């Protein structure tokens, strides 16, 4: 039983990481119906900038408490990612807003490749280690070994989702966002500054990506110029699984994907008598994704939107 509990914890933490990144995908999609493939790379840049700042901080003041160093890293990484996200939207997406939908998709992939290569040039191709400054305390919960960082990651994705939901549903800005999501032309006729709203969406999504990147690198103890790619792909799948454009769906999809992966990897070998090994965990996760999409094409929590001509 404690092994099952541990696998659930493993899956929940992994899923919360997917969820944090998936929120960024889903927010942009909700407004622009654009899949911002560069979002995974923004996450990577967040991790890299934070690690660089933390390295510098530790170089100047090695006795600083670990938490303060991490906060210092976040305080630089978040504005850096905001600037990056804003620039990406201005340069790569805004000029193509009236273009066919494939065009911004391709620039998104292009931006993603450019960011990877720029990161490789700046930080090199090596894996960069996260400094061992965070407390390693672990707790026993229902027989499972849980660390403070894991609890923090799960809480953070919950808080991020709740905060975003509140913003979208209960604030003026959120109302403007929803209006833009429905129809940009009508929203702008009603006096909504569409460009400002879209920029704001990218800014919020990128800030979230910076935090997610920092969490990923702290959790796995490393960062790498390529880390955003697979993470972005999984998070995007999570967003689709939950219903892209839906904030709750992103978190649900992320958690589901994480738990399926963990349980798949943990039990698939024994269940099939060694015929399928744990390296099939991704296959398992994507099989579930396909199955869900066959029966619910708009995802678990996605609403059926009538096709607009």
């Amino acid at each position, binding site marked *: 039983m404690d092994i099952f509990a541990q696998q659930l914890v493993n*899956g929940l933490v992994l899923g919360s990481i997917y969820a944090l990144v998936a929120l960024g995908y889903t927010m942009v999609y909700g407004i622009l119906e654009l899949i911002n493939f560069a979002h995974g790379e923004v996450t990577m840049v967040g991790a890299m900038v934070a690690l660089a700042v933390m390295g510098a901080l530790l170089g100047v003041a090695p006795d600083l408490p670990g938490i303060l160093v991490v906060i210092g890293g976040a305080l630089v990484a978040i504005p850096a990612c905001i600037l990056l996200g804003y620039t990406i939207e201005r340069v790569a997406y805004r000029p193509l807003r009236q273009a066919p939908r494939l065009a911004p998709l391709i620039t998104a992939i292009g931006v993603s490749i450019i960011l990877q290569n720029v990161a490789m040039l700046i930080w090199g*191709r090596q894996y960069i280690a996260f400094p061992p400054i965070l407390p*390693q305390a*672990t707790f026993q919960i229902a027989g499972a070994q849980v660390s403070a960082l894991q609890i923090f990651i799960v809480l953070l994705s919950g808080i991020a989702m709740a905060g975003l939901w509140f913003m979208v549903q209960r604030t003026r800005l959120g109302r403007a966002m929803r209006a833009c999501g429905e129809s940009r032309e009508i929203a702008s006729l009603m006096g909504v500054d569409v460009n400002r709203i879209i920029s704001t969406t990218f800014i919020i999504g990128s800030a979230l990506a910076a935090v997610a990147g920092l969490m990923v690198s702290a959790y796995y*103890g490393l960062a790498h110029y390529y*880390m955003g790619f697979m993470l972005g792909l999984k998070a995007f799948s999570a967003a689709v699984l939950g219903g892209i454009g839906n904030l709750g769906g992103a978190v649900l999809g992320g958690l589901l994907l994480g738990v399926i992966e963990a349980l798949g990897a943990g039990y698939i*070998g024994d269940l099939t008598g060694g015929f399928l090994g*744990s390296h099939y965990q991704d296959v398992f996760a994507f099989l579930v994704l396909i199955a869900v999409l066959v029966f619910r094409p708009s995802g678990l929590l996605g609403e059926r939107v009538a096709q607009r001509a």
Partner: protein
Amino acid sequence: MSLHTFGWSVLALALLAGCSQKDDGKTVVRIGSVAPLTGAQTHIGKDNENGARLALDEINATGLTLGGKPVRLELIAEDDGAEPKTATLVAQKLVDAGVAGVIGHLNSGTSIPASKLYNAAGIPQISPSATAVKYTAQGYQTAFRVMANDAQQGAALGQFAVKTLKAQKIALIDDRSAYGQGLADEVEKAVRAAGGTVIDRQYTTDKATDFSAILTAIKGKGADLIVFAGMDPQGGPMAKQIKSLGLKAQLLGADGIQNGNFIKLAGADAEGAIASSPGLPLDKMPGGPTFKQRFNAQYGEIQVYAPYAYDAMQVFVAAMKRADSADPKKILAELTKTDHTGVTGQIRFDAKGDTVGGAVTLYQVKNGTWAPLATVQ
């Protein structure tokens, strides 16, 4: 004035004047070096290239003549990104460039597909670090290596786990690469042969960073030893996750994690991990200490395989000298007769192209560095 005498007079002038030699009039012989220079294994790839380059620079500095003509060696360093598909493209590129031989590739997964092309072109290939058994077992006369293969390393690891560490329940994890898979198979064989029990075999990929699910499954089976057959970008986080999941099992790895990067990535959790590496510790190598000095002066710290890449180049050029020709066919005939005292030890090839009697050394992380634990022949 013939090219021949011109070259000699330039060389004589250069020697007389004591200045750096000029390239004018020398025949250029190209030698390929292939390793991943992009991607996760770049640090190890660059290390191989530097090892080969150091040997080549030293040979060029002392001067080389083939068939009476002064020769300058030129290294063509290529990047295969540790990808089998890229490896064959790069191999074809080198064949087309007319290289006399190839030092590489770094990985087994790239050396094996590339070896087919080199064999078809009759170009000798010496891998400094490919250890999969299959590499030299394909019947290619052109494939050589200067390092103990996985059968030798796996046997040493399996025996060490059962006989020395007295492990009762052994779990295996491999990264499904040609290297990881082959090594894990050999370890499993050796563990069974030594009377040990393999209680679980798990798999990951060479791009994964999350191993909590498979480690939890292993924890559930009560393993007291985890053998990981893969590279340091996975081994580092794995060591961390073993500790954070509260596993008491000892981590045992191979040459893929026996490097400084593993310790950097795993941090304090690297402490106590054991890993094997073919060959002897650098300071126990016959030419180790002086090699380290020369390498550090040029390229900084040694990652892992640089001494082997250096020896591979030396062995190749020695065969070239004996053949007195840059013709791959003639070099190949001489290469099989190799009996070379290199930095890493005595190098001789058996009929398949494997090194004869390669030693395997086990290291343990103590106070943040790899300390030699035992050497198995």
